[in-house]
């Protein structure tokens, strides 16, 4: 037996090492009820020790290399290559001024949107708290699109937090270590995000393919989907907030496995292969920075000015309204107003009696108001008389109804 192990010790060691690793793999991979194998994701609260060890061994020198490189770049950019900085600074200051104005306007829109959302009881928010982080390394494997950032659980990061850049989404946190974290990029095969194709609002799932390109799968063929269309996050994956830019449609290709479906190739908005700094969305609760709060206060002050202006307009309108004709006499007590006159109103005059009544003529009934008229009518007065008031001014209004216009 001893000679057997001595003779074949190389093969024995090989077998032992391989079998041990296969057992390790078998522990990690599970087969679900539908017959598909998945990595064991039952306990996602922690990190496997071997990953922690690997990270602890590889990350410090990797970070050191990265920061040495950044230091060299900083030395060059901050001390050596300073030509034209003043001119650039002036341009940037102008840009900042313009952007602040735009930001104030956008914040006002955001506040309005927030109020509307509260009315509709929507639980989504669009102002987020983020934590900037430096990217210092990758997994080193082309088949595994993950990278490492220099912030970890000590900075409040947790698994499945979204990672973005100002250009667009980048990925989500996979494993979080004390002072670093692993980010699963959106172009990895195992990554997934709900997206909307604009302007058609067709929904799909964003995945990475074998060559690290982004593609939206599960999309029915639709001729309205054109290259150049914007792709935004849908917000239904509970990781990426709604409306963040993902990229633009680059190409549409038929899905060879499913008739009627297409692959939509997407050019990412963020430079996934050249990331330096990223933002981790640590909270989706509304958050305003000090500058934003100041802008909001300014905006509210502007609202007060607008309100004052509206009030002045209303006052002027009231003053003008007083100049218009009215049924009320301002200098007469309320009970003496002509409108409250208890005397019976003058009845309108009756038309003269016809000389030769016919079937259309009204019956000749004697009424007090027009008795004189009826008595005094003759053939020469047969023409209809104008309706006159008691004063006979011929305006068609009674003396009680007409109030002279008051001039100020």
């Amino acid at each position, binding site marked *: 037996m001893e000679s057997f192990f001595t003779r074949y*010790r*190389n093969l024995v*060691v*090989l077998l032992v*090492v*391989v079998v041990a*690793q*296969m057992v*390790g*793999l078998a522990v*990690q*991979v599970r*087969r679900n009820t539908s017959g*598909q*194998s*998945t*990595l064991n994701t039952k306990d996602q609260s922690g990190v*496997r020790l*071997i*990953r922690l*060890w*690997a*990270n602890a*061994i*590889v990350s410090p*020198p*990797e970070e050191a*290399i*990265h920061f040495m490189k950044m230091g060299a770049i900083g030395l060059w950019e901050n001390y050596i290559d300073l030509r034209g900085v003043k001119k650039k600074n002036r341009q940037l200051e102008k840009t900042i001024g313009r952007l602040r104005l735009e930001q104030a306007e956008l914040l006002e829109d955001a506040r309005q949107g927030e109020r509307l959302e509260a009315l509709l009881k929507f639980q989504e928010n669009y102002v987020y708290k983020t934590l900037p982080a430096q*990217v*210092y*390394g*990758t*997994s*080193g*494997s*082309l*088949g*595994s699109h*993950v*990278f*490492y950032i220099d912030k970890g659980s000590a900075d409040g990061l947790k698994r499945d937090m979204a990672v973005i850049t100002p250009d667009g989404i980048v990925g989500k946190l*996979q*494993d979080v270590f004390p002072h670093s974290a*692993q980010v*699963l990029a959106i172009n*990895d*095969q*195992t990554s997934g995000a709900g997206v909307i194709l604009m302007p058609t609002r067709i929904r799909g799932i964003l995945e990475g*393919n*074998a*060559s*690290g390109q982004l593609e939206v799968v599960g999309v029915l063929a639709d001729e309205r989907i054109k290259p150049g269309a914007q792709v935004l996050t849908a917000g239904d994956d509970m990781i990426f907030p709604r409306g963040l830019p993902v990229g633009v449609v680059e190409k549409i290709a038929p899905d060879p496995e499913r008739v009627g479906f297409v692959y939509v190739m997407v050019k990412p908005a963020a430079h996934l*292969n*050249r*990331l330096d700094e990223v933002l981790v969305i640590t909270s989706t609760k509304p958050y305003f920075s000090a500058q934003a709060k100041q802008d909001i206060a300014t905006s509210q002050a502007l609202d007060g000015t607008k309100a004052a202006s509206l009030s002045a307009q209303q006052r002027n309108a009231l003053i003008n309204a007083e100049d218009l004709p009215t049924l009320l006499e301002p200098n007469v007590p309320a009970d003496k107003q002509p409108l409250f006159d208890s005397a019976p109103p003058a009845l309108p005059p009756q038309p003269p009696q016809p000389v030769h009544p016919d079937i259309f003529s009204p019956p000749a009934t004697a009424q007090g108001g027009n008795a004189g008229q009826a008595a005094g009518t003759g053939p020469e007065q047969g023409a209809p008389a104008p309706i006159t008031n008691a004063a006979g001014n011929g305006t068609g209004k009674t003396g009680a109804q007409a109030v002279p216009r008051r001039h100020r």
Partner: protein
Amino acid sequence: MAVIGSSLRRDLEIRRYPILVYVLVPLASLVLQAWLPRELGRFAWFDLPLVVTVYFALGRRSPIQGTVMGAVLGLFEDALSHRAIGVNGIAKTAVGFMAASVGIRIDVENHAIRLLLTFLLSLLSSAICIFIYRVLLGLEYKWQWFTELFIAIGNAVVAVMLFPLLDRLQIKDY
């Protein structure tokens, strides 16, 4: 007598290195493998831990050492990725064993042989990885043959450049 002569010849050709080299070179390969793809993007067609595994396996001519070196580096590579731990480990274990086994039989000083050997062992490593993912584990794993080919070519080129540099680190008896 022939056996003794052969054994002596083999022993003489076994390379020895300072302990630090056994630690620092594999560590450097892991660190650079993790750092360089960030700088090179998707053109990082090489696998430095595999190249280092092949180098030490060929130099030491010990299948056991090659096996252990490959297993350790492969496991660390897996641990740095988000995939199952052990796939690269098994692949590099096999590569280390094969490289050492071949190194006993042929002259590995020749650059052309080094280049060809690294190229073939890289392809073997890729094939084992794909086999484990898709057949053994039944996991969905998309791959492209030309990417694996480019990685194998890249490894061969890196090996030709790196091996002479690492040769300088060996302990010489004279």
